[in-house]
């Protein structure tokens, strides 16, 4: 066991993966000497060399596009997109090329590429540094989208993502980067929870609360507050946005009869809509109240001085729980 921050856990996960497979390359802007703007790749170029930790020109489409070529050659590129807001120049390469090459080629071509990306708000930064673009990727057949909320998952899920033959968008909750937690580094990857599984964090009978990435901590906080009032929330960390582990969710919602979905991205068109649609169908006779969504509002990310009013917090989650309980 080790106490690691999420940044450090990902760094260690990358290191372990690179140690075990020489085909793994890292690519991105400033990931070499600088170690990335969040230091996730700190020290890796020094240890693995400039050929395996590649500082790229400033062109996101170029990074993903050349990573595709490298993967066709037989490498396993792990691409860093510096910030969520800078992924869009690469959108075409990601959703039209990366996502479809296996399908296009009827299985002949495999692109085992992982795209790492810090995402989400709450860090007081300027425009384009606080985005939650996950719904775009989760709506794209051919991509996998996962996100971690604690250090142990950060460590294992990045390794699982890299080991997968599918292209994986690996979302890193940037405002939790420095949150520390236990990491079971002695384990084997096969012991770790499958990256596509949701994880029940607290057992509760009153209402299911589902979050992912940066909002998991907020959900847990809400659960603690609720517990003080005698309300038992079942908090679930979704972990995988594509595929969605419906059976874990349905089991919980069938038990509690209530669900609150929490994410930072705008509500409309967000992951929450898809989840609410599926749960409303799957738990039709069990739901005591409509599935509630607690999300960012349907606006571009606002100036940081009011980001706390935009981001879901424990109060808003508890309001939704209350609304659900009183419905």
């Amino acid at each position, binding site marked *: 066991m080790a106490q690691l921050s999420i940044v450090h856990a990902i760094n260690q996960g990358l290191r372990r993966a690179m140690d075990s497979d020489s085909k793994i390359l890292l690519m991105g802007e400033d990931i070499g000497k600088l170690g990335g703007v969040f230091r996730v790749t700190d020290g890796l170029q020094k240890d693995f060399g400039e050929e395996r930790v590649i500082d790229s020109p400033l062109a996101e489409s170029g990074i993903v596009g050349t990573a595709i070529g*490298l993967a066709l050659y037989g490498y396993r590129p792990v691409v860093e997109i510096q910030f969520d807001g800078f992924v869009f120049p690469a959108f075409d390469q990601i959703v039209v090329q990366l996502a479809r090459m296996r399908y296009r080629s009827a299985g*002949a*071509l495999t692109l085992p590429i992982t795209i790492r990306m810090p995402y989400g708000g709450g860090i007081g930064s300027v425009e384009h540094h606080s985005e939650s673009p996950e719904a775009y990727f989760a709506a794209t057949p051919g991509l996998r989208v996962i996100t971690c909320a604690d250090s142990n998952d950060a460590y294992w899920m990045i390794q699982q993502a890299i080991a997968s033959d599918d292209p994986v968008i690996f979302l890193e909750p940037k405002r939790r980067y420095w949150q520390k937690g236990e990491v079971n580094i002695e384990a084997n990857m096969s012991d770790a929870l499958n990256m596509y599984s949701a994880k029940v964090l607290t057992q509760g009978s009153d209402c299911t609360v589902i979050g992912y990435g940066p909002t998991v901590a907020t959900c847990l906080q809400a659960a603690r507050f609720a517990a003080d009032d005698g309300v038992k929330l079942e908090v679930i960390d979704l972990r995988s946005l594509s595929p969605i582990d419906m059976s874990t969710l349905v089991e919980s919602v069938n038990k509690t009869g209530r669900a609150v979905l929490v994410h930072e991205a705008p509500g409309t068109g967000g992951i929450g809509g898809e989840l609410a649609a599926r749960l409303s169908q799957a738990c039709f006779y069990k739901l005591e109240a409509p599935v509630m969504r607690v999300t960012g509002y349907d606006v571009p990310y606002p100036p940081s001085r009011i980001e706390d009013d935009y981001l879901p917090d424990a109060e808003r989650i508890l309001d939704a729980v209350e609304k659900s309980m009183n419905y």
Partner: protein
Amino acid sequence: MDQFDSVVQLLDSNGSVVANSQFTSTLSQSELLGFYRDMVLVRTLDEQATALQRQGELGLWAPLLGQEAAQIGSARAMQKQDFAFSTYREHGVAWCRGVDPVDMLRFWRGTMHQGWDANHYRDYGYQIIIGAHALHATGYAMGAQLAGRVGSGEAEKDQAVMAYFGDGAMSEGDVNEAFVFAASYQAPVVFFCQNNQWAISEPTRRQSRTPLAQRAVGFGIPGIRVDGNDVIACYEVTEHALHRARSGQGPTLIEAVTYRMGAHTTSDDPTKYQLFSDVELWRERDPIKRLKIYLQTKGILSAELETQLAGEASALAQRMRDECRELPDPKPSSMFDHVYADTDINLEKQRAEVEAILIQSMEN
């Protein structure tokens, strides 16, 4: 920038050899005959596919008419271990890589998105998104470099990559980013731009006011213009660039100046924008005709060989007609195959749904 006003030509439109300070033909008679055969058969293939589209057997087809020399000359300069990344029009390249013309039809008939195994032929298949594959080619070339397969000096080891695209593609961000990456890493990639004067209805001057080969210079990449209707020049220039690439001297941009003699695709109506007189002018420069004259003049191409080739061509056409109609339609439920490497429960449910619908409709 005078260098870009001149175009490397080794065989003029009358079939006469032209002297060039930098390049000379290294091709044997049998190689030249081979190129001639390639061009004739590829033109046949193209005409036959166009006809099949007209008959409703294909959804669409993008003719290569007029671009035979550019494609055959360049692709024949490739080694087996090289790799080609193409657009929707490079049937001639696929031909040189050994792809069966019937396999080419799968894409256009809509039975498969990729009609052959890219790794087997070391040919990537058709790419529709303009410019996207220039980056894939560059990345692949970077891979060869990382794998130590550049500059080793071993003839069968060193690799290079060909990236084919058109004059229109030169405007896309992706192609320019490919130049950036290729230059930055000195990747062994040859960008082969067939300037066929048109991007659908738009003339090349809408994309650029300077010769396209010149674009390379600003990226620190050598650029060279070649007569795209001269198969010998296309071969020599590409062979030179591929050699540079394989031996570690980095990327090259080749602009092959040619003309799209057919429609953009079978859906297009070029009379809306092409001048008849231009087309006539370029007909004079036909790539097959000039090599034919040359070969005849040299006594290399006998009437007997001609007849034999005509027979080969009509057999090919016949086989395409026959086999196109026989191409198996995919099973509806195959739409769920290969979306992911791992099994997906959600998709398996949907597959079951599609299978149930089919059974239901068969019962009705």
